[in-house]
């Protein structure tokens, strides 16, 4: 497959290297001349020394025949525009944006960029998974919607422990999609009583994450 990587910082450089090693064709677009020649030295003649947020540079990189473009600069507004230009101007079938400020994930989705990666959110998920009592884990945003999937482990002394699914004070638009109890999936009804240690899977509008947390942990 043919990939365009916009931005050759640490993320872009290693991503390009990994894609090449996996046997893909890659073009890296990097505006900084010194950084571009560094990447060229390491990875070969796959670098275009241009600004990736210019339509002309994207055309030159062949974005209309690319299978995907990934924007991984350190500037959210730039990543948004790079992806939108590829989508509107070159009709690149798949665009993926790195989002530095996790709050911008929902903004990008609303503005038509469905696939976003926030390293902050990924790190938070890992950290929160490790915490003994704060078992609240936003798993992933759902493509093509403003919803996300959240997993939470019912802790002792929290509002849901020993209560029914129907009594949860979830925000509007949020539903319990499943309960994992001792390694088995339980189909939840309003009357399903939640036990300490149950893992509850919730579908919720991304903006209501805080309210979901409050409903499950008080």
């Amino acid at each position: 497959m043919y990939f365009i990587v916009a931005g050759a910082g640490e993320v872009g450089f290693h991503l390009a290297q990994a894609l090449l090693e996996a046997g893909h064709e890659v073009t890296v677009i990097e505006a900084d001349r010194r950084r571009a020649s560094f990447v060229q030295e390491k990875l070969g003649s796959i670098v275009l020394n241009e600004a990736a947020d210019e339509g002309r540079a994207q055309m030159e990189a062949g974005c209309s025949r690319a299978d995907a473009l990934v924007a991984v600069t350190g500037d959210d507004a730039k990543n948004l525009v790079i992806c939108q230009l590829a989508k509107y101007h070159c009709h690149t079938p798949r665009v993926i944006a790195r989002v530095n400020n996790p709050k911008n994930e929902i903004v990008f989705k609303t503005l038509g960029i469905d696939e976003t990666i926030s390293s902050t959110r990924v790190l938070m998920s890992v950290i929160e998974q490790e915490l003994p009592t704060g078992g609240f884990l936003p798993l992933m945003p759902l493509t093509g919607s403003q919803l996300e999937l959240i997993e939470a482990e019912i802790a002792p002394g929290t509002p849901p422990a020993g209560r029914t699914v129907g009594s949860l004070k979830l925000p509007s638009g949020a539903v319990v999609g499943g309960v994992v109890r001792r390694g088995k999936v339980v189909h939840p009804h309003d009357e399903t009583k939640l036990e300490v240690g149950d893992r509850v899977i919730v579908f919720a509008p991304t903006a209501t994450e805080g309210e979901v947390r409050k409903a499950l942990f008080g």
Partner: protein
Amino acid sequence: MNVVIVGCGRVGGFLAGLLDAEGHHVSVVDIASTSPARAERAWFQHLPSTFKGETILGDGTDLEILRQAGVEKADALLALTEGDNRNLMAAQIAQKIFGVRRVIAKVNDPVRAQIYRRQGIDTFSRTTILGTLLFAMLMEDREVGEVLIKKSLEHEKDLAHEPAPAG
């Protein structure tokens, strides 16, 4: 009208002054820059001393900052920072998330300006507007240049009457 202006450089400050003098309610957002050259100067130095509107220090692509600036009840938002991408992001947030009716973004790259205009974001490119105007002045094309130049000379005269800011 309630107007939010993102980016208070020379153009943003000038326009905020014009609107304010006409009795419109204007909120101006400018980023808290960390560059030392910038920090020494007043944030909103380009606003006229008579400006009665709000000034908000923050990132104009941040939903919370835009809310503070009153974007939810704004009739118009103008994105006039030095960054084309930031302007396009702020304008799209205003239009698609907050439903602001009139949204205009300054986009100096003419290619980007055109692509986004086709997507329904009103853009203007200083490059093409100024270039076209200069061309018309040189060619003495009165139809294109005259009205605009007359109007801006009037505004300049008003500005010159302004007392210089203290300090």
